[in-house]
């Protein structure tokens, strides 16, 4: 857990440095920060670690079937080998007289193993109910699957992308509401012994109670296309709610708007947008500020603050030529506070400043952009003001010592009153 957290923070820090320098190093299309943690096996011979409340039950049922199967298998192969040796054709050996059927015996070996099968069935079914029927006191996490990444939406409005993984709290039961934006995926966490397909057009649910802090693997286990084997992430189980909050919140209270913008970008945008000129699912965002882009419908649009805001709220309205319509991007209408939009704008502009400073188009454009942002409480902080520790932000980690509480009211200080998770699940029905 600590590893993952440290790794995540280190990643954010290092990206910060590169962003401040020249164009950020190209983030690989399918970066998997968890890969290094799974170079060797943790767990027993047959299984990964047991990290959920029902993992041990699954394993012991597996081992029960294993030993009973081995018993039968040894009997069958043993008898076969014994017969071949004992009754092999050789001079002087003749077929001995033996019955060609024995109804009692045959009924016995048809019916008796049936009792074992009933045992497996009953045990397996009760285990299945335990894996699928969630207790009442779960927190709900929305899991959105798309080619080839996962996004996780927490009850307090935070969300994390594939790169930073799913963050849970030890011993807090959580219900997952799965949905898919495109094709079938399957949400598979071996250490939890849990798997459920995400099906486009409907919601599927499952639940888990993590019992062990640490970092575990999350796979997509239903074939979903070219990047199927790259669609993996990690599950980080934290000891306390505060640690989870620190790892999932979108911004820090004590950091500059640029840094917060970058963190938001990494969490919310980097799944589809590179901080370079290279395109991903969506356009790369470096160097686009102030650029005149040709749209799908033939018109042209200058990328400025208003276009930025429109793209965020109504992604399908104007789509840059070469990208599919309707846009694959979800609307962030109601999901971002004005502060957050500002920070994002500051960060994305910084991506262009670096590029365009050579061409002298940047400064007037930027100046105009900052001045032209009305009605925003933080507008006067200015785009490049790095020391602006926003007055109303406090360090989030400290707010959440009461781990059991649903951190909704904390979140509402900074975010919209509608947590994106609820919005996703409610709006679709």
């Amino acid at each position, binding site marked *: 857990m600590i590893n993952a957290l440290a790794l995540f923070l280190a990643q954010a820090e290092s990206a910060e440095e590169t962003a401040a320098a020249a164009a950020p190093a190209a983030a690989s299309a399918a970066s998997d920060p968890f890969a290094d943690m799974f170079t060797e096996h943790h767990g027993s011979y047959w299984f990964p670690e047991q990290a959920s409340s029902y993992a041990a039950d699954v394993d012991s049922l597996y081992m029960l079937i294993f030993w009973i199967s081995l018993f039968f298998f040894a009997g069958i192969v043993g008898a076969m080998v014994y017969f071949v040796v004992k009754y*092999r054709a050789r001079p002087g050996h003749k077929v001995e007289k033996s019955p060609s059927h024995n109804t009692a015996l045959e009924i016995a070996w*048809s019916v008796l193993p049936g009792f074992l099968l009933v045992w497996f069935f009953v045990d397996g079914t009760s285990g299945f109910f335990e894996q699928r029927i969630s207790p009442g006191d779960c927190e709900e996490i929305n899991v959105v699957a798309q080619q080839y990444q996962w996004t996780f939406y927490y009850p307090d409005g935070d969300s994390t992308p594939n790169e930073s993984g799913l963050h849970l709290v030890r011993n807090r039961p959580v219900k997952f509401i799965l949905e898919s934006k495109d*094709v*079938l995926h399957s949400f598979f966490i*071996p250490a939890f012994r849990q*798997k459920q397909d995400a099906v486009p057009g409907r919601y599927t649910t499952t639940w888990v109670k993590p019992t062990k802090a640490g970092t575990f693997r999350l796979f997509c286990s239903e074939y979903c296309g070219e990047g*199927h084997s790259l669609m993996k992430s990690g599950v980080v189980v934290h000891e306390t709610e505060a640690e989870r909050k620190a790892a999932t919140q979108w911004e820090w209270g004590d950091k500059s708007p640029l840094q917060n913008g970058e963190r938001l970008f990494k969490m919310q945008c980097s799944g589809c947008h590179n901080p370079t000129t290279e395109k991903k699912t969506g356009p790369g965002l470096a160097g686009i500020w102030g650029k005149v882009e040709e749209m799908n419908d033939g018109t042209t649009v200058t990328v400025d603050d208003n276009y930025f805001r429109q793209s965020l709220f109504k992604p399908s309205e104007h789509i840059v030529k070469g990208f599919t319509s309707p846009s694959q991007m979800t609307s962030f209408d109601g999901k971002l506070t004005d502060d957050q939009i500002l920070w994002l704008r500051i960060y994305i502009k910084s991506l262009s400043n670096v590029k365009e400073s050579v061409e002298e188009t940047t400064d007037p454009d930027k100046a105009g952009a900052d001045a032209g942002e009305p009605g925003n409480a933080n507008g006067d902080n200015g785009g490049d003001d790095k020391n602006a520790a926003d007055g109303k932000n406090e360090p989030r980690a400290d707010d959440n010592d009461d781990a059991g509480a649903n951190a909704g009211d904390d979140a509402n200080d900074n975010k919209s009153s509608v947590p994106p998770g609820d919005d996703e699940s409610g709006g679709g029905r």
Partner: protein
Amino acid sequence: MTATPHAKKLFGHASEHNYLNASSGFWSWALTLDHKRIGIMYLIGVTSALLLAGVFALILRAELFTGTKSFLTEQQYNQMFTLHGAIMVFAFIIPSIPAALGNFVLPMMLGAKDVAFPRLNLCSFYLWVFGTGFLLTAMLTNGLDTGWTFYTPYSITTSTSVVYATFGAFVLGFSSIFTGINFLVTVNTMRPAKMTWFRLPLFLWALYATAIIQILATPILGITLLLLIAERVMHIGIFDPAYGGDPVLFQHFFWFYSHPAVYIMILPGMGVISELIAVYSHKKIFGYTFIAFSSVAIALLGFLVWGHHMFTSGQSGVVTVIFSAITFSVAIPSAVKVFNWLATMYKGSIRLVTPMCYAMSFIFLFGIGGLTGLFLGTLSVDIHLHDTYFVVAHFHFVMVGGTLTALLGGLYHWWPKMFGRMYHDFLGRVGCFLVFAGFNVTFFPQFVMGARGMPRRYARYDDEFLIFHQLSTVGAFVLGIGVLLALGVLVYAVFRGPRVAGNPFGGASLEWQSSSPPSFHNFDHKIVLNDPYDFGAMVWDEDLQTYIHREFVMPEVPEKPAPVPTPRS
């Protein structure tokens, strides 16, 4: 003892006039209506498909020797496993034993001249050629990356050639239906007068049960594939959620065919093994009725368990539990067969020749394949194992360890009948051992990595699974060499093997009463009906070097008066 002069004439030498030389030239084969030639052509076809798809498998395994990219991109890997799966399933396993071995053996086991509809039979073969060609061309030109299951909605959105490939599979479905109809009618109408249902060889029971599935289930696949094409081309909104459809419905349709199809693949194999065990134990098969009815039970229950492919798909919990229960019930008839085979070996006289080695290999591998099915039928365990390498290993143990092993065993069993030549038995056994050993090294590690959480259809994987993948790759190449050796020994025998007479193994079913190779009309004499497992009726004749039915033995003139039978105590 000596054979009657008539028998000497019939069985004394490898037949000079047989179906192989009855006529010659390309068209005499291409337009033949002879079930034996069609069977041979099918055999060449499905073996080519096996080798081709086997090469694809080796390419996959070679790529997976490391967890990072070796020589295939993700997209190429996906196309490769699709090629491997689709060709193995549609072009090899489904037609393998029924269409190749079944075509040759089924009419002869009935003492018949041909199948009921010889033209339909030839048509079925050409549909196979056309369908396979279409499938292969589609996949090799524009690629196909859906997996052999064509799951929606991915198969609707991918840009690869789904329409052409599904059309190929659709045509192959008809090939399969035609074979099924043909066998069903042949067994029903062309049995000799006194051959009742319970005097049928068990291989025919298995083929009959298979034919029922082929006829009832394959049309569902055809309709499903047509709907998929319609969905792709016209967006009719059945499977595609973007148009109000339900992607899980496709899975129901698909598995409603494809689970019974699993039994199309394995039942004929079980039938072959029933024959092999009996002949090479030289003993009447134990529990004939139970084996016969277990084939039918498997065929019928096989229609009711498709949902176990969908335990994690989001289908309702109640349905899931019901499917789990019925799935366990299929285990029973399969286990019954294994127990009966063992009881047949008990107190027999077992000849450990190549076909018997394959039969033992079958019991071992199918045993593992069947028992690991219990893990997957158990719901809570399946939630963990579903779509992992555990499943991959499980169905390869059944499909390859079962069906391929049975096919090879059956080929070695009937090869002298088909070509009148004997193979090198020792090399045959070496081939069998390599197949067995290579197979286990390939697929056993996959159980372990599957249980540890390695998902299937992954082009790249985490380092913790490296050692298992490497073992698996090494095993796959040994398996490949074993299959090549096994087939090589057979091919060599056709041209260089010593000639053999009609019945070298002492089989009691009717096909062994023909000369080897059989004549164009199969039987040149009146067949002697007897119980297919009454091996006591077959007598070894030193002069002719073959088993002949005791009716063909000259009545011995007793040298002294026969002893007075002692009354039973």
